[in-house]
């Protein structure tokens, strides 16, 4: 392509330094927010005012900040659930299904122990929390394992499989908590029974203790990818499965393993929102909304390029944006789904930016006009 006396060419990047990748990610985020500004403009609202409201509510408001932190923990866990398979070149879009499975298992523990209904327990809450966490992780890991197993053993497209599992888990939750299902709230209302107050999760600095779990997981995953044998195996498989098998890395074990790990973490996300966030403590009627929210994990994973530490600020930012989006929607009288629209716009901008991670635009001055090529007779 030409512009004046300059030629604009696309050149494949030979290398991408971390700094440049960071810059690109920041630019992508800014461009996405700019693009999203048009949604406000279309609704006749000043975008600067809207963003100002979003940010001040999400990050600087005593009421909004805790909501942001709760959502941040959730998104971070979903991001990790996405990242682990992503580093192996696989797409886990089954976070919703996995987190539903995890929530059901966590509440299943109470159901089995017959807590919930009698509201008293002779067991130490510590043990019960431990059991709930473990059950959530195991059940979600098992859900993930289905996709990993089918991918590793039969090479079945993991996107289709995880999506099918999402819908199955979705309806399973409905069955469990609605219309006389085993976990139904005694008051009806289409939600699950509530956690007794003795089992409300402990708070650290005003936030659920799952915050510590999520941050610790970030450090562990970072270490795993950078320094351990398993991390190397996952990355090698993700870059080139044929070369990985040459090096003795199992083409069956890695897909299975990444989906088990990713699933387990998604299960914790489910436990977090329905079992540890103050004011919820039950599988809510609108549980489908939290499933949809899990897809922000894909965006955080893409923008942090699979880096577990970079995911932390990204998840915090997007957690705030989604909370703030819902808030201004009500505040400014906009129609439902503003946070969904943000999700869509962010995603598509990021997709377009995938290009810049691979290519750079180089402009060079053209020395002389070369004649157009063609057949001369």
């Amino acid at each position: 392509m030409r512009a004046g006396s300059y030629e604009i060419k696309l050149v494949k990047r030979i290398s991408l330094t971390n700094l440049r990748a960071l810059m690109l990610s920041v630019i992508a985020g800014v461009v996405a927010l700019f693009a999203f500004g048009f949604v406000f403009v279309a609704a006749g609202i000043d975008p600067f005012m809207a963003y100002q409201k979003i940010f001040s509510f999400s990050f600087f408001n005593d009421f909004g900040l805790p909501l942001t932190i709760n959502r941040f923990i959730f998104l971070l866990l979903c991001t990790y659930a996405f990242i682990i398979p992503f580093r192996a070149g696989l797409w886990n879009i089954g976070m919703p299904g996995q987190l539903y499975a995890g929530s059901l298992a966590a509440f299943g523990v109470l159901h089995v122990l017959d807590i919930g209904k009698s509201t008293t327990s002779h067991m130490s809450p510590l043990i019960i929390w431990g059991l709930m966490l473990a059950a959530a992780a195991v059940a979600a890991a098992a859900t993930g394992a289905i996709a990993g197993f089918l991918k590793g053993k039969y090479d079945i497209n993991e996107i289709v499989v995880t999506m099918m599992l999402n819908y199955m888990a979705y309806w399973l939750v409905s069955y469990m908590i609605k219309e006389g299902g085993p976990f139904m709230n005694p008051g009806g209302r289409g939600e699950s029974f509530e956690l007794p107050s003795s089992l409300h999760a402990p708070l650290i600095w005003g936030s659920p203790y799952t915050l510590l779990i999520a941050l610790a997981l970030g450090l562990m995953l970072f270490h795993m990818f950078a320094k351990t044998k398993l991390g190397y195996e996952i990355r090698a498989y993700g870059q080139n499965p044929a070369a990985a098998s040459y090096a003795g890395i199992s083409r069956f074990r890695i897909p299975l393993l990444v989906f088990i790990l990713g699933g387990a973490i998604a299960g914790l996300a489910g436990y977090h929102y329905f079992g540890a966030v103050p004011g919820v403590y039950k599988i809510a009627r609108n549980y489908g909304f939290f499933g949809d929210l899990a897809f922000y994990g894909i965006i955080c994973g893409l923008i942090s390029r699979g880096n577990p530490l970079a995911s932390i600020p990204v998840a915090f930012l997007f957690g705030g944006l989604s909370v703030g989006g819902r808030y201004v929607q009500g505040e400014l009288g906009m129609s439902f789904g503003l946070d969904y629209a943000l999700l869509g716009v962010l995603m598509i901008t990021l997709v377009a930016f995938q290009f810049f991670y691979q290519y750079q635009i180089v402009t060079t001055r053209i020395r002389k006009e070369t004649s157009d090529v063609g057949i001369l007779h």
Partner: protein
Amino acid sequence: MLLKQIKPGEIVLEARGITKRFPGVIANDQVNFEIKVGEIHAILGENGAGKSTLMKILFGQYQPDEGDVFVGGKQVKFKSPLDAIDLGIGMVHQHRKLVPAHTVIENIILGHPGAGRIIDLPRVSREIGELCERYGFSIDLKAKIWQLSEGEKQIVEILKSLYRGAEVLIMDEPTAGLTALETEKLLASVETMSRENLAIVPFITHKLPIVLRISDRVTILRQGKVVASFETEHATEKSLARELVGRDILIRTERTTVEKGKPILEVQELSAFNDRDLMALNGVSFTIHEGEILGVAGVSGNGQGELVEVLAGLRPSVKGKVILDGKDVTAMSSRKRWQLGMGYVPADRNHVGSIGEFSLVENTRMNYYFDSSFYTRGSLNQHKMRAFTQELINEYGVAAPNPEVKAKNLSGGNLQKLIMARVLSRNPRLVIAHLPTQGLDIGAIEFVRNKLHEAKENGAGVLLISEDLDEIFSLSDRIAPMYEGKFMDIVPIEQARRDAVGAMMAGITLEEEI
């Protein structure tokens, strides 16, 4: 079409002063070349001599930086291969440009404007049938490409060009991958075509006897320049070789015989399927001892790939046993075999032997990531890994600025050096080298062969798989010609004759006393 007006003996295609530069290299430097109607004009040159660049310029895939191309005396500028095709220039690719899942007919008419919007199958088959008759080709037009042999695929490529009206036929390595029998047939057809006034330009790397046999003229390229151009009748194999490499000797490895030790690898009646579930490896048995190179000679696609993969633990065997250093490893995983002393240099260094997006350090790690000596309490000792990679780079003379560059930025030769370094540094008991010098330049070929020989001198057993008889004869202690999934024989080097081995690669046992 321009060519119809050109009479036999006149120049049909000419290139004058062609120069083409790529970052850091001049691929073609003032190259001149011409071909007359009814002539066979071979272009000879090593890898990297600029052959494929010239070929792509003549076919319109590249545009020259300087110089002009003339067809029938008129200057032309090709924007794309389509322009070249329209002027009657056809290309027969070495890596066959055919769709495997489609039929012969579908491949021939692909992109041909004359096939009609709704494909008129009866008319098209008739026309192609006539072409076959005229040039003496026989082929089943309804067969799928994947069912065909290499020789048949080449016929399809030629037919495709002819059906589109090609009068100049550029052939890239026309005999690569063909058996001796198929080569004979092809050469006969080429001669028929030149008698029918087609101009034929075969590009050949180093099969000198073929050049001598079929061409009328030969032009030799070296480092992007034309170093010689003469009538073939004045040439000998020796004179061609001298011009080709610029020195008198071809590559020769000093082969020493080492005392044969105990058996390292014993293979008994090994059979395996290929990806299409056909029996591609069919009851192969052999033994390799310490200090010995067994050379498997064969045209690719005769089960060598399957043999190597089964030995490396990457493909299940259906029958038979593999015993590595006294242990039965038939059911063991690939990693287990690496740990037991297998070292494997795969044929595809870009997609199997290395990970392009990984740094050289991480590529070295491919054969060491499971080795506890590089970890402290499960955590990688990055410093040690990097130092080790640097050591290998120095020792093997890999041209790389530092060990952090990505593998995809290395040239083929340097990448192969890194892979060899990584594999051989494990001091493997058994080295499996699959087409280790394919596509390398002469310097790198020499290096790789010397390293394999060194490994043997150090007491390893080496399984060398190659298509190149020169390579097989210069390195092997015993030679196993392979054909259709079987070893035709295993011949000690002292008793091996080139013609007999060559014939066995084509499935023919010469009935002579040895």
